[in-house]
């Protein structure tokens, strides 16, 4: 497979469930050898995109090629090229962890002996030894996830698709997943993962695609996305909800404020950095409203996420919301 063929190339990919559009004209490119994160809130359409790419559900319209193969017309070739770890562990609950691995290896074409060897390698690699011979129905959710990941890596595919691989994992298991992803890419495998954790996308991915309401709302490297949502800003954190309201009244008429009510935070763009910090501080001090914190910050992916997925709206709507 020439490396010029992208691992995923989707054009105007659309999926409707009845009249509901879960994925809406989604354009998506995953270059080979990269880690691309599909980032979005609950219900954004991440799993639906992944399922279309993994040939589990057919697009309503648009097209997608995975490793050069059309997901509808050449579904078999696609399945050969990829491995999917779904959002929820998909294992046979009445087999042991090891038996599940052997089963997956057998289905991928290994001989019995080869499958046993492969399973044991994976048991060691993913720290499964402790619960290797327990029935999957009786091991913990995080352990199950690990077996699930191992089960999809009985061969080294061209593209590994991981749907929320670290949701619900403890730090150690998360580390196993992260190091696996790095390792896979080190071996030339392309990784597409979905996540709701910005930290994770930032840490792992070299390309991030934001998806919301089925639409790609922004894409780029983590640095590009940060740049896209602007420069530094001043965050003012109120001590309590009442203080937050007072601050809205004080600052909103003077600065183009953005609000994050759940964190009692008001953000003011600060292109002039410390000068803006001083200006905001002055207004706040003059108002006499107590604050927990005033700080100059670099934009984080969190900001990008909130700004780009529309969770956060501009000052007018939000002020109304807060006052109501």
């Amino acid at each position, binding site marked *: 497979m020439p490396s010029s063929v992208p691992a995923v190339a989707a054009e105007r990919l659309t999926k409707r469930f009845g009249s509901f559009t879960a994925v809406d004209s989604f354009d998506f490119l995953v270059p080979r050898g990269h880690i691309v994160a599909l980032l979005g809130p609950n219900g954004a359409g991440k799993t639906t995109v992944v*399922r279309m790419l*993994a*040939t*589990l*559900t057919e697009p309503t319209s648009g097209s997608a090629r995975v490793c050069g193969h059309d997901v509808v017309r050449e579904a*078999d070739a696609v*399945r*050969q090229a*990829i*491995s*999917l770890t*779904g959002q*929820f*562990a*998909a*294992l*046979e*609950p*009445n*087999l042991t962890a090891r*038996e599940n691995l052997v*089963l*997956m290896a*057998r*289905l*991928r*074409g*290994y*001989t019995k002996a*080869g499958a046993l060897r*492969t399973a044991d*390698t*994976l048991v*060691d*690699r993913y720290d499964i030894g402790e619960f290797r011979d327990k*029935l999957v129905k009786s091991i913990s959710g995080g352990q199950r996830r690990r077996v699930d990941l191992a*089960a999809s*890596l*009985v*061969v*080294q*595919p061209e593209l590994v698709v991981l749907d929320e691989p670290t949701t619900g994992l403890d730090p150690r298991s998360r580390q196993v997943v992260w*190091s696996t992803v*790095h*390792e*896979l890419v*080190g*071996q030339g495998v392309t990784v597409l993962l979905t996540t709701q954790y910005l930290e994770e996308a930032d840490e792992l991915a070299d390309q991030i695609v934001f998806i919301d309401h089925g639409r790609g709302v922004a894409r780029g490297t983590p640095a590009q996305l940060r740049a896209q949502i602007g420069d530094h800003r001043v965050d003012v954190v109120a001590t309590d909800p009442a203080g937050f309201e007072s601050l809205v009244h004080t600052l909103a008429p003077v600065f183009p404020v953005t609000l994050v009510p759940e964190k009692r935070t008001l953000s003011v763009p600060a292109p002039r950095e410390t000068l803006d910090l001083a200006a905001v501080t002055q207004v706040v001090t003059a108002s006499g409203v107590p604050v927990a914190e005033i700080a100059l910050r670099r934009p984080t992916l969190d900001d990008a996420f909130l700004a780009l997925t529309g969770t956060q709206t501009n000052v007018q709507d939000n002020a109304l919301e807060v006052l109501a």
Partner: protein
Amino acid sequence: MTTATMGTAGTGLALPVALPVRANRTVRYMRETAVLVGRSLRAVPRVPERLSDVTIQPVMFTFLFLYVFGSAIHIPGMRYQDYLLPGLIGQSLAFGVIGAGVATATDFATGVTDRFRSLPVTRLSVITAQVLGQMIEQVLGMAIVIGIGLALGWRPDLTGAKSLELVGLIALGLCAFTWFGVLMGMLVRSSDAMQGLGFAVMLPLSFLAGTFVPISGMKEVPRVIGEWDPLSTLVAAVRQVCQGTSSTGSWPLEHPVVAMVGWCILVTAVCVPLALRRYRRVSAA
């Protein structure tokens, strides 16, 4: 895909690299089916409900009717064992729908089906394995019923030819009802719903089917239902083959073997294509 070397950071353990060479489609299909049937059968003894569906439940029915209700039931011209056991065989056949449906629905609900569908595995093998695995499970249950029956004094009147006829009928019935169950499991998709629905439909139908008491003695409404109940055909056919009894009331009851073969062929002919189509399209949400 021939690269076989790769360093692994940290652990020094290598992930297996190249995909093993694949055989041709038919060989693959048979191989995958065998692996998947193995998986189903391995799971049976580990699921108490499934194991009891095929073991304890038929045993319970046998004892309950033979020793509890049976004392109040008198079938003219025959011992109750000889009346009851063919009925229970028919009932087990029909209950195969529930087992197959529950197993299929469970696979969808746990995402196992999706996982199989995301693999380069012939999709036909997944569904074939489901059907074969279930049939084997049902045969196990039926063997238990027959064994208990014989131990408790059931004396089937089977010659060589009749035995073959019985085996043929059972195989046909298993096939039809298992496919029906697999289709239902895919439509219902929740194993609890399948279990509930299955019993709600099959239990009354099996009671009306002349399994335990003759249809001719029932009140009018149940009698008419019983006369046209497809399960009655199963029971009457097995009874006719095993004991040489004949039944009356409706055309299917007067010609039970022909009617049963007809039913089974019809059910199979409808369910197989529908199930295959459904399997190709559906995906757990």
